[in-house]
């Protein structure tokens, strides 16, 4: 018996056409109304959308024996939707994406107008995301409903793995979608010794922020820098194709660069240059310096001297000329850690003193404050510190979804292909 297209039960061809159709509808919308404005979904609109989705899922469970619902909660539909999202994501990796959807006037050219300048804010992507949320939701709801009526259909361990993977992902996708509309982020720059309370979003509008931040002190620690052979003509580190660097490492005072054997005779992490001599000193302008001996392994010639990157003081700079072609120089030290000692003030008059570091943010009143930047040209002498402030009211549900998914992942690891359904249905 042959089945004609669009005759139930639907298979892969119908599923592929369905996903393509959703994308096509998305492109049509994109061409007519432009990029999807996540602001439209901001609270409470996202709650309404979520409620609508749940009603649709409930309706699907009510009519679960219709061929359409069976198909919607089946594997061909899931595979088609995942594949469609995969294609869009693959495109995103192939062309640079704008950080924000372009303004309608600026979206010149068909590619940009079709939504490809920022795929994740384009209608095809949003519609496919929503369709996946619906299909995944119906899949989970039907499985729960089925198990509640016929506990013997699946073993509990099997149900557990299935539920963790799919329900966890559903919660995460739903929370991430809602969060995309409600998330607020802003950057604030505070000068040392001053207090700041104004922040602006990317359009330059002031955000109502229930916080003020005083920057007490900004500190920066650096790693010992590296040495490099530099070509005197081109001023580039050698060898040209793959520059080699010699890490200054107290545990390994000797190394090789090209034909030269280098030994570090003395290393000062915080040095200043006084009358041409380098001395250890914790002054703010201090910078790493090293006294080295370089020995040419081919002709035995030896060179000795101080090398210093200079830091913020031009007069500190010192390089060692080796021969007609090369000199030895020090790279800029890389930051090891940087931190801001701050006091945050809340409207209720609370004062919270904290030290902000990369990977160590501070959360107060729904806002999380991150160490974001500093004056990289000034390095440790930076007179200001940049903070990023983020508020995502949907973070908790997203984290719950991730936690459930982690359980699902663990059962995949523990049971391998045992998570797969034995035998086939469909």
């Amino acid at each position, binding site marked *: 018996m042959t089945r004609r297209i669009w005759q139930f039960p639907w298979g892969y061809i119908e599923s592929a056409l369905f996903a393509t159709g959703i994308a096509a509808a998305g492109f049509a919308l994109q061409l007519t109304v432009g990029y999807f404005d996540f602001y439209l979904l901001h609270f409470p609109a996202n709650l309404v959308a979520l409620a609508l989705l749940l009603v649709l899922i409930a309706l699907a469970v009510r009519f679960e024996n219709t061929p359409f619902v069976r198909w919607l909660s089946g*594997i061909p539909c*899931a*595979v088609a939707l*995942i*594949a469609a999202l*995969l294609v869009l*994501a*693959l495109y*995103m*990796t*192939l*062309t*640079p*994406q704008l950080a924000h959807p372009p303004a309608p006037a600026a979206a010149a050219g068909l590619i940009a107008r079709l939504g490809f300048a920022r795929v994740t804010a384009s209608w095809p992507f949003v519609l496919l995301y929503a369709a996946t949320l619906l299909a995944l939701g119906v899949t989970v709801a039907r499985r729960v409903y089925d198990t509640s009526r016929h506990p013997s259909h699946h073993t509990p361990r099997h149900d557990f793995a299935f539920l963790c993977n799919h329900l966890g992902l559903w919660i995460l996708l739903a929370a*991430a979608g809602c969060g995309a509309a409600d*998330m607020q*982020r802003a950057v604030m720059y505070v000068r040392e010794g001053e207090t700041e309370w104004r922040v602006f979003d990317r359009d330059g509008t002031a955000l109502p922020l229930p916080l003020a931040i005083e920057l007490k002190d900004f500190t920066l620690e650096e*790693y010992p820098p*590296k040495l490099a052979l530099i070509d005197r003509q081109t001023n580039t580190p050698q060898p040209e194709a793959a520059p080699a*660097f*010699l*890490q200054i*490492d107290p*545990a*390994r005072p000797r*190394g090789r660069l090209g034909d030269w054997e280098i030994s570090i005779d003395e290393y000062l992490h915080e040095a200043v240059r006084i009358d041409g001599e380098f001395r250890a000193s914790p002054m703010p302008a201090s910078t790493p310096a090293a006294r080295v001996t370089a020995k040419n392994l081919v002709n035995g010639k030896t060179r000795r001297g101080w090398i210093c990157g200079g830091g913020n003081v031009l007069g500190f700079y010192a390089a060692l000329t080796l021969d007609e072609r090369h000199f030895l120089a020090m790279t800029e030290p*890389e*930051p*090891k*850690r940087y931190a801001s000692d701050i006091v945050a003030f809340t409207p209720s008059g609370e004062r919270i003193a904290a030290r902000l*570091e*990369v*990977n160590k*943010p501070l959360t107060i009143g729904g806002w*999380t404050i*991150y160490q974001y930047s500093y004056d990289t040209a000034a390095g440790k002498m930076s007179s200001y510190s940049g903070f*990023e402030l*983020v508020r*995502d009211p949907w*973070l908790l549900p997203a*984290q719950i979804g*991730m936690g459930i*998914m*982690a359980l*699902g*992942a*663990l*059962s*995949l*690891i*523990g049971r*391998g*292909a*045992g*998570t*797969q*359904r034995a*035998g*086939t249905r*469909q």
Partner: protein
Amino acid sequence: MTWDAFPFFALPAALCWLIAGLLACRARPVHRLAIELPMLAGLVLFAAFIAAFWHTLARPPLRTMGETRLWYAFFLAAAGHLTWLRWRDGWLLLLTAVMATAFAAVDMLDPESHSIALMPALQSFFFVPHVVIYILAYALFGIAAFAALAQLWRQRTQPADTHLFAFMDEAAHIGFGFLVLGLLLGAVWAREAWGHYWAWDPKETLAFVTGAAYLIYIHLRAQGRTDKLVAWTLPVAFLLLLLGWLGTSLFPGAQGSLHLYS
């Protein structure tokens, strides 16, 4: 211990692995200890280098490409060994040995400069588990891809080998579990370091692409399909994975990625 010492560990280790792999492929079976002992010796030697290297750097050796290749070689050999213990597929042991050797060889032929610097964003509890779990998933997916190629080779003339499909499923499911775990750890970490758990950074987008490709395989197999198209998804997914891992910096869309460290 620095890269200078690497060949003294990697060469004997690779030799052990290759011997074990060749012995496992012999038509006349040898005593299993003749295979397992060299395998283990190679693993111990390799692990010793990683541990000593870590100690010298005073930071986890997971920052640079060369350092991640180191772990990949180790996990490939380890996963190959475990697979052999459970499934006794000699050719797979040899294959993982050859691949692990190839990755170690790249590090021997093109050693990186010694560097102790670890940028502040990477100084986190999540750094080691996030990267190690990913590399483990990559190793399993590599094995799954080669098993799938063997399956495809067979399917040119014969029906699918269900034993081999069962093995591909095992590797793909466990690999996917690790992939999700690595992704979740990365999401928690990103939230702590950058303020968002997912931002469609190019590396994240490629991780999504990879994950989606493996999901397609898992769901096609959940339907019980054994056709060639299904077998093809594994090598294709692995290709996407390799692009995301080794080639992120090559992608036009990846310029300015927060994930590019060295």
